[in-house]
């Protein structure tokens, strides 16, 4: 077990060193922004190597923080290069003009619901994002935000039930699972589609 861990650690560190090396060599800001993602993955890898429940609990916030930083940086990049006026439309690829995105999205969302919880939310959200990206929809952000907010509240409430009334754990479990599923799905759908709607 211990040896496996050390081997994995070695691999992750090598990956990290390669990513850092690339970062040092690269001079273009956009490419550095893309390379940063590789670096980020190495840090998640180190956490994942723990291989316990704790690791899962730690990866999620780590991932969220990483994504947030990446989004903030890309926003700054856009501002700094002055390319804010580009309107984001759907992807211009022939295949996804047909029904394929719909089917794939539905499959992903169903799979996400079956998985439930944070991972399920991520997958379902990915399905939604894929659909929105390929169709270039203008969806109602306020509604999505409200849904995300309410499901987050449900999730928190479930935690309080866990702590205060442990005998209702099953209800709380369902509340938490559904809440986090909806929240992550809604949030994932928001990511990348809120682009440039209202300038700062």
């Amino acid at each position: 077990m211990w040896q496996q861990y050390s081997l994995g650690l070695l691999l992750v560190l090598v990956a990290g060193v390669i990513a850092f090396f690339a970062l040092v060599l690269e001079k273009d800001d956009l490419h550095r922004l893309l390379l940063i993602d590789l670096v980020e993955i190495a840090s998640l890898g180190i956490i994942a190597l723990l291989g316990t429940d704790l690791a899962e609990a730690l990866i999620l916030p780590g991932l969220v923080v990483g994504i947030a930083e990446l989004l903030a940086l890309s926003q700054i990049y856009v501002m700094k290069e002055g390319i804010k006026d580009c309107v984001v439309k759907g992807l211009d690829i022939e295949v996804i003009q047909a029904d394929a995105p719909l089917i794939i999205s539905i499959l992903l969302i169903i799979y996400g619901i079956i998985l439930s919880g944070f991972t399920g939310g991520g997958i379902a959200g990915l399905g939604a994002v894929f659909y929105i990206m390929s169709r270039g929809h203008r969806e109602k952000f306020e509604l999505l935000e409200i849904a995300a907010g309410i499901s987050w509240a449900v999730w928190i409430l479930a935690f309080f039930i866990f702590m205060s009334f442990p005998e209702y754990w099953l209800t709380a479990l369902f509340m938490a699972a559904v809440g986090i599923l909806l929240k992550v799905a809604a949030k994932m759908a928001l990511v990348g589609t809120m682009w440039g709607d209202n300038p700062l």
Partner: protein
Amino acid sequence: MNIAGEPFLVLEFADELVYLTPYTTTLLLFALAFTIFAIISRPERQVDIVFGGDAFYAKKTSLSEMRFRRFMAIACGLASMGAVVTGDIFNFTLFISLVGICNVGIVAAVKIRHVQEAAFQYGIVALSATVPLFGAAALTAATTGTLSMIELGKATTAAVSPVIKALLVLGVMGEGMAPFYAAKAEMFRAPGAPYVIMCSLSSLLIFLRVIEVVLVI
């Protein structure tokens, strides 16, 4: 060894742990004071002199920019308060990377080219610093089996190796620890006082805190 005084309040909220020693309380109050300043203060208007003449002009911060930056400054204050009082290594690293994002956010809305350039470069460093930062937390958990600073401070748990401590310090340095940021000095030249000060304040606070953490664990 008595590091920063005896903790006089330990708040255990499931596995979240908050503890207050005289040292962390001092830092917390300071962060709190500046967060309140950021909430209630209007931004300063930076005066610039027109070169070669007697004229001068005051840069104004527009309302929407002010709202955004105030929000970011408050978030930064909250994140540094969290980093200062938490008793859990992983939460500590999370709060510190939050501080890193918020620092970028505080100056992100300023439409001055060199400030944005500095913020971007700083952000790249901050993002790559998450590797040693989270790495240190994960390695601590892997080698000792706990993340609680109080547990780690006891003699019963396995000692945290100096390499891990060095990784932790390296990570915090990258996220903007006090004396090691060339890019940040450039960021401070952005107008809007109570907000840019949060950048500098948060980096000093996390510096002071990481010293304590490294000594305790």
